[in-house]
Every structure is written in structure tokens, then in C-alpha cells.
């Protein structure tokens, strides 16, 4: 793992949906090595703990990364108040990203709500060979669907209340998709219940699956052991650490 800490400029700020923000940050040395699925540990003035936010997109040419986050509490609220040209202190890139296969393989990327952002960089790798199944509560929470569209991915948009795209959960959409055609790999990030359903389907169709998990963090780099999550390795249960062993895990290893 190679990471850096520094103060980096927010070069673009956008409000994607109610309480959801999109920052593009100039940080060439991070962009240089960042991979899909890794995260940034963001310091927010006035708070003792940093906030982990997934890297949504990496632009190596322009030396920028993009993070998309939702206001969930006091910290993310203060982060949302940061404006273009302010410097933010981040440690990145952290954790293990998704395993990317040859881009000619068929991939399904699935995101639920604020689990959608890390899927953009994955879809960018597979482009037209990617199916993006993204789910939200309602039309007003939909984010990033156009990003997947412009990458050439086949987008299946779902909302719980049917106000946009198809009505229902991403797991239903995935089941339909898998009845039609198999895939080489599935990537997913979102609530535990959603991940559970996806893992069941991946097992049923015997498709490799990687999921990204969340846990509260201290150091973000693997030193403090606070971000424990239960996993199985060699048939034995053990506490892995989301920040260093994850956030991406093989679905066969996780216990949800």
C-alpha cells in the first residue's frame, strides 16, 4: 500500500441531488496510483476523526479524483460547506480496490444509494461491457446515472417507489438480468441487506462477486484495528479490517 497525506484543492463542486455533493480534487500524486474501489480519508475542521469517502472517479491525465458524498451527520454537513478553491486534507488512496478483469469481460456493477459512486470508476474500465444496476429510494435521490450512460454502460435504474426507472430493488433487476445472460464478475456496494441478496444470486449462478463494506474508522491505514469486520478465511472466522484488508472483499469471505 502506498498512500499520501496532504492539503489538496477542490477544483469543482457540484450539488448532485438534495444533500449529495460531488467534489473534484486536484491531487496528482494520488490520482496517479488510485484504483477503483479505494477510498480517501477526509479531515474536517472541528472533528477529531476523519471521514472515509470512496473514490468515485480518477482522472490521471488531469491529476484529479472525484468524491461523491451524502450529508449523513455533522461531519459530512461541514464537508458540504467547503467550496471550490478551498484546500481539504486527505489521506489517499487507501484500502484495496476492486479486481478488474480484462475489459472485454462482462461485468455487472451494482450500487445502492450512496453505494453507487465507487461503481463509476469500475464501469469506466468495462464501458459497453458493463451493466450498471443502480438503485435509489426515489427519483429525487438519483445520482450519477448520466455518468454511467456516457461511459456506454447498459444502465438499469431502479427506484423503490417507481418514480424513475423501474420500480423495485436492484436485486430484482439483477435476477432479471441474470436470467437473460450470464456475467464474468459482479461488483456491489450498498446496504447489507442488498449485498446479501446479491451474494445469494452470485452464488446461485456461480459468478465471481466482490463487495465493498463500511465500518467506522480511526486511522484508516490499518494500524488501530477499530474497523473490524467478520470474515472467513480458510474456513475459519476472523476479524479483518475494512480499511486495509478491504473495503473490497471477495463475497465468499464476508459474513454479513
Amino acid at each position: 500500500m502506498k498512500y499520501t497525506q496532504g492539503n489538496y484543492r477542490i477544483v469543482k463542486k457540484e450539488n448532485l441531488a438534495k444533500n449529495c455533493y460531488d467534489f473534484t480534487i486536484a491531487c496528482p500524486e494520488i490520482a496517479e496510483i488510485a484504483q477503483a474501489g479505494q477510498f480517501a480519508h477526509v479531515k474536517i475542521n472541528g472533528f477529531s476523526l476523519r471521514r472515509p469517502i470512496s473514490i468515485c472517479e480518477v482522472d490521471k491525465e488531469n491529476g484529479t479524483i472525484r468524491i461523491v458524498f451524502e450529508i449523513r451527520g455533522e461531519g459530512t454537513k461541514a464537508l458540504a460547506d467547503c467550496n471550490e478553491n478551498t484546500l481539504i486534507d486527505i489521506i489517499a488512496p487507501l484500502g484495496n480496490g476492486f479486481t478488474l478483469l480484462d475489459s472485454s469481460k462482462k461485468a455487472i456493477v451494482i450500487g445502492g444509494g450512496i453505494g453507487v459512486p465507487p461503481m463509476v470508476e469500475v464501469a469506466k474500465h468495462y464501458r459497453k461491457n458493463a451493466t450498471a444496476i443502480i438503485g435509489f429510494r426515489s427519483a429525487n435521490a438519483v445520482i450519477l446515472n448520466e455518468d454511467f450512460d456516457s461511459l456506454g454502460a447498459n444502465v438499469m435504474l431502479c427506484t423503490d417507489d417507481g418514480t424513475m426507472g423501474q420500480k423495485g430493488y436492484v436485486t430484482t433487476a439483477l435476477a432479471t438480468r441474470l436470467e437473460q445472460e450470464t456475467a464474468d464478475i459482479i461488483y456491489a456496494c450498498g446496504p447489507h441487506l442488498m449485498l446479501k441478496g446479491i451474494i445469494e444470486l452470485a452464488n446461485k449462478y456461480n459468478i465471481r462477486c466482490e463487495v465493498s463494506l463500511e465500518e467506522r474508522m480511526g486511522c484508516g491505514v490499518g494500524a488501530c484495528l477499530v474497523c473490524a469486520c467478520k470474515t472467513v478465511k480458510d474456513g475459519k472466522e476472523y476479524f479483518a479490517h475494512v480499511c486495509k484488508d478491504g473495503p473490497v472483499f471477495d463475497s465468499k469471505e464476508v459474513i454479513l
Partner: protein
Amino acid sequence: MANLSVNFAGVTFKNPIVPASGAFGFGREYEELYPLSTLGGISTKGTTLEPRNGNPAPRIAETPSGMLNSVGLQNPGIDSFLEHEVPYLATKDTRIIANIAGSTIEDCVETARRIEGSAVDMIELNISCPNVKEGGVAFGVNCNSAQTITEAVRNVTTKPLMVKLSPNVTSITDIAKAVEAGGADAVSLINTLLGMKIDINTRRPILRNNVGGLSGPAVFPVAVRMVWQVANSVSIPVCGMGGVSTWKDAVEMMLAGASLVQIGAALFDTPFAPMKIIDGLNQYLDDNKIENINDIIGKVQPW
């Protein structure tokens, strides 16, 4: 540049700044940012005889100016520590302080015994972890048991022995005197203060363990007070910690009587904290025309 080196319980540290046990793992992760050789020493993650899984997550909660943790001594066990971590740290030109704990006196004794003959420079016996059911703080809140366990470990090791004290006691000076009588070469304090945080919407504690150890700037004044009291009641050296996040805090801690200073929670917010503190100490000494850092230890002038 001033002389930052201190002699602590017979061990020479090139500077008094040491990342605290539990916040720095075994050093590997932070070596991505700076060479470990710049540190006075490293107090390694609390290690027990057998490997431990620790407590279920969430294991951390944010509090005003601090944090609560309930890791519960997750560690790979002493044999793995000696096989994989010590040889690595031994190449880093810094002092290795092995922080150890156990559920029983026998466990602590056996753990210390296995360290004998390794490259470890000093043992820090943790009798103050608030996050484990057995052992841990149980030894550290009673003078008799604190003295007994210190004596037992003292008997099996020739390494300098530092005992880490709990602030969750009525009289920390009594405990400090007891471990001094038990043969400790030094004391370190403070471990975390027992605390709790409740989510008012779910009405559940944030920590799965319900309670956890408070550290960070919130505990700093408590730590300074305790270091000062202990430094004035024992004749063995004191290693101070608890909420140190800037060089000014480190100076304060040393004026109160600490000859080594450990940095814990500050690392999460500022991974470069130890480097910044070492630079700041140098500057402070130069600005005040003090040539030797030992000249500030315990030099507070109380009213």
C-alpha cells in the same frame, strides 16, 4: 539544534516522542509516510499470550475533542509478534517498547518470559485496558494486585519494565507507588478513561461493547495532572500520554514531569503528528536557548 535525547530507565531514546500502543500498530503502516528511525521509539500494539479477536464493531465513536475505542486488545499473540514484528522493527533504528497484557498473572509472566532474549528494548505492562472483561484494568485498580503482578513479571525479565497505569482509580499515586515497590523501572500513564456515547435516535450506545476508552485532547488536562502527581510521588521515571497532539502539549507534559511522551489518538487526525512534535520541540528549545531537553523535565513551578 538542542539535544533531544533522553535516558529513560536505562534506555537511551534519541528523542522523547513515542507513538502510543494501539494507535500505531507495529509501525509498518506509517512507514509509508516517514522513516520509523525518526521516532524516539514505538510502543507496539498490546500483545497477549494467545492471539485475540477483540470486541465486535463498531469499536469507535467520536466525542467532543476526542474519541472512544473498544478494540479489546485484538492482536496476533506474542509468538507471532516475536517472529514477524520484532525482527522487522529491529532494523528500524528506533526503540521497541513491547506493550503486553493478559487475563491472568501467569499469562503476563509467560508473555514477558518469551520476550527475554529478543530485540525488544523495554516492556510496557498494561494493567489498565478498560476494554477487556478479564485482566486488563482489573489489575490496575487495586494496589495489591498491581504490586503482585509487577513483582511476578519483574522476576522473569531482565528488560526494563514499565507499568502502564489506569486513570480510572481513586488515587493514581497509590497505584504508582505500589508498582514501584513491585520493582517497576518506570510507569506510563494514562491509559484511556472509561466513557460512553449514546445515539439519541436509536437509543443504543454507538459502541457494540456499550462502553469504551476515552482518549484525545479531551483527556489532556487529566493526564497532565496525573503525570504531575505521579512524578512527584515516585522516584522512577514517568512516561506521559493522553491527548498530546501538538508540540506545546508535549512541552507541557514534560514540564509536568514526563521524560517520554506517547502520542495516540492524534495520529488519526494528523499522521505526521510525531514529526511535527519533534520539530516543534527543537524549535521551542532553540527559541528558549535551552540546550538539553532534560532541562525541562519536571520543571513546572507550581504555586
